[in-house]
C-alpha cells in the first residue's frame, strides 16, 4: 500500500478552495474577461454623452437615467449576458476541450468542483458588474438631479445587490446548461431573450417560470410605476393578485431556483458519462 492511501481524509473546504482558485485564475487569464468588462462599462457612454451635450433640448434627469440604465440594460441584458459568457463555460468548457477526465479522475467531490467554480464566477462577474454600476452612478451625477447622498447611494447599493442576484440566478442556470447540453449559449439566449420576453406577455402565471420575474420584484420602489407589458386578463390579474410576490418571497424564489440548478449540475457532473459520445464516434 502506498503512502497516498494512508493519508487522512482531505477536508471538503480544501477541495472547494482549490477549484475556486483554479477557476478564478482561468477566468482572469481569458480574453473573455476584457470583453466582459468592456460590455459592462459600455452604458457609461450614455450619461457621459448627455453631460457633454448639455443643451436644453437634451437635458435629462440623472436619477432617471441611472434607474433606466440599471433596470433596462444591466438587469435585462448585461447581467444575463455575463452569466451566459462565464456560466456556460464553468463545466461546459472542460467538456468541450476534453479536459474533464483530468478533473473526474481526481478524488474531488463533484459538488466541490461545481460550487468552487460557481463561487469564482460569481465573485469575478459581480466585481465587474458592481464596479460598472458604481461608475455609471458616478457618471449620472454629472447630468443633474442625482448626487452622492445617503439615499441615492442606498439606491445604488440596492441595484448592485439585485444585479448580483441576477448573476446568481442566471449563472446557476447557465452552468446547468453548460453541464447538460452541447450548445448552452444558444439555449441560454433562447431562454433569456426569447422565453422570458414571451412569458411576460402570456396571461396567467407563466412568468413565474422566469428569473426576471423574481428580479423585478426585488427592485427598489420608485416614485413612478414601472411599465407593465403583460396583456391583462381577468383570470391573469386574479391569479397575480393571489400570488403577488414581495421582496422576501422573490428572494427565496430566486435562491431556490439557483439552488435547484446548482444541485442539478452536481448530479449531472456526478452521473453523466462525458466522453461517451466520443467513444461511440471512435
Amino acid at each position, binding site marked *: 500500500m502506498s503512502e497516498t492511501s494512508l493519508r487522512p481524509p482531505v477536508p471538503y473546504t*480544501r477541495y472547494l478552495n482549490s477549484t475556486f482558485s483554479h477557476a478564478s485564475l482561468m477566468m482572469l487569464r481569458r480574453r473573455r474577461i476584457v470583453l466582459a468588462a468592456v460590455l459592462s462599462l459600455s452604458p457609461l457612454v450614455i450619461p457621459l454623452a448627455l453631460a457633454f451635450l448639455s443643451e436644453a433640448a437634451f437635458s435629462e434627469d440623472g436619477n432617471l437615467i441611472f434607474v433606466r440604465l440599471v433596470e433596462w440594460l444591466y438587469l435585462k441584458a448585461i447581467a444575463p449576458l455575463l452569466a451566459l459568457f462565464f456560466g456556460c463555460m464553468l463545466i461546459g468548457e472542460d467538456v468541450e476541450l476534453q*479536459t474533464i477526465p483530468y478533473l473526474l479522475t*481526481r478524488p474531488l467531490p463533484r459538488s466541490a468542483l461545481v460550487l468552487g467554480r460557481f463561487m469564482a464566477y460569481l465573485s469575478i462577474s459581480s466585481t465587474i458588474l458592481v464596479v460598472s454600476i458604481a461608475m455609471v452612478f458616478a457618471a449620472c451625477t454629472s447630468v443633474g438631479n442625482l448626487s452622492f447622498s445617503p439615499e441615492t447611494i442606498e439606491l445604488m447599493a440596492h441595484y448592485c445587490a439585485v444585479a448580483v442576484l441576477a448573476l446568481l440566478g442566471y449563472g446557476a442556470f447557465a452552468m446547468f446548461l453548460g453541464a447538460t447540453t452541447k450548445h448552452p449559449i444558444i439555449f441560454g439566449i433562447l431562454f433569456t431573450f426569447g422565453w422570458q420576453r414571451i412569458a411576460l406577455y402570456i396571461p396567467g402565471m407563466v412568468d413565474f417560470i422566469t428569473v426576471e420575474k423574481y428580479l423585478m420584484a426585488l427592485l427598489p420602489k420608485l416614485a413612478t410605476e414601472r411599465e407593465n407589458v403583460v396583456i391583462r386578463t381577468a383570470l391573469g390579474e386574479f391569479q397575480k393578485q393571489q400570488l403577488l410576490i414581495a421582496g422576501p418571497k422573490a428572494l427565496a424564489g430566486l435562491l431556490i431556483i439557483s439552488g435547484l440548478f446548482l444541485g442539478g449540475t452536481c448530479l449531472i457532473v456526478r*452521473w453523466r458519462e462525458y466522453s461517451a459520445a466520443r*467513444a461511440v464516434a471512435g
Partner: protein
Amino acid sequence: MTPVIEAQTLSKWFGEVIAVNNLSLSIGSGVTGLLGPNGAGKTTFIKLALGLYGPSRGRLRVLGQTPRNNLGVLRRIGYCPEADKFYENMTGYEFVYWMNRFWGMMPAEARKKAEQACEIVKMSHRMDDVVSEYSKGMRQRIKVAQALATDPELLFLDEPMSGLDPEGREELFALIRKLGEEGRTVIFSTHILYEVERVTNTVVLLHNGCVLAEGDVHQIRDLIDEHPHAVTIACSEPHRMAAYFIDNPATLNIEFSDGRVTVRTSDPNGFYKTLNRVILDERIEVASVTCPDDNLQSVFNYLVK
C-alpha cells in the same frame, strides 16, 4: 491474493455500439499491457476502471471496490489519458500543480510534488513554459507527470508512448519497469506489441471489446512469427528480386504491383537473411521495405478465425 482489477462478464455499450463485450479478466500487481488495435475497447475498459463510465452489464472491482463515483478508489489511482488535451494557457508546471491541488494536496506540497514529477519525466528545464508551446512529446511527458505526481498505487497509462521521441520512449519504458518493480500496478494500453515486450511479460489482448488472449507476451510474439508474414519491397527490378524467393519452400505467395513485389512467407527470419544477401550481392536498388502484416491485425484476424 486479491486481484487489483477484476471484471466479470463486463459489458459497456453506447447506444448500439458495443465497446466492451462480456469481458472477464483479472489483473494482478505489476505491469500489464493492454494490447489491441484501435477500437478494441482498451480506452473504454480503462475508463470503466476509472469510474468515468458505469458498466452496462457485469461487475467490475478496482482495488477491491466498485470504481464508479468512488473517491476512495480515485485517491489511489493515477491516470494519463490518451487525448492530447490541456489547459493550453497554463505552464506544464502549473498544470501538474493544479492536478495535485485537485487531488487534495496543500499548496506547498502540490508545488513540491509538481517539481519532482516534472523532474522524473525530464521536463524541469521547460516546466515554466506554456503548454501550447510544447512539442507532442513534451505534452506527453507532462501528462505522465500529472499521473505520477500523486504517488498512485495503480497507474493507468492510455497510449503513453504516443508522440514520444525514441529517447523519451526508452525513459518511459524504464520508468514503467521501475514502478512495477516497486510493487505498483501499472496498466498501459498500446497497439504496438514491441512496446509491451519492452516493459512486461504480462499482456491482455483485446479485440472488438473481448479478451482474445491473456498471459505471456512471448506466446503472442511466437504466434506472430508463425503466422504468414508479408513483406513489400519497392525496387528497380521487382521481377528479378522475386526470382530469389520463388524457389524457397517457405514462400507462400508473390504479387507484383507498380514497381513493388510483395512476398508472403512462413519463415520471416530466413526471408530477411535472403533479402539482405540479395541487396548486397546482386546490387538491386531497393527504395523501401515495408511489412504490411507486421502488426497485430493479422494475428487478431487469425485468432478471431
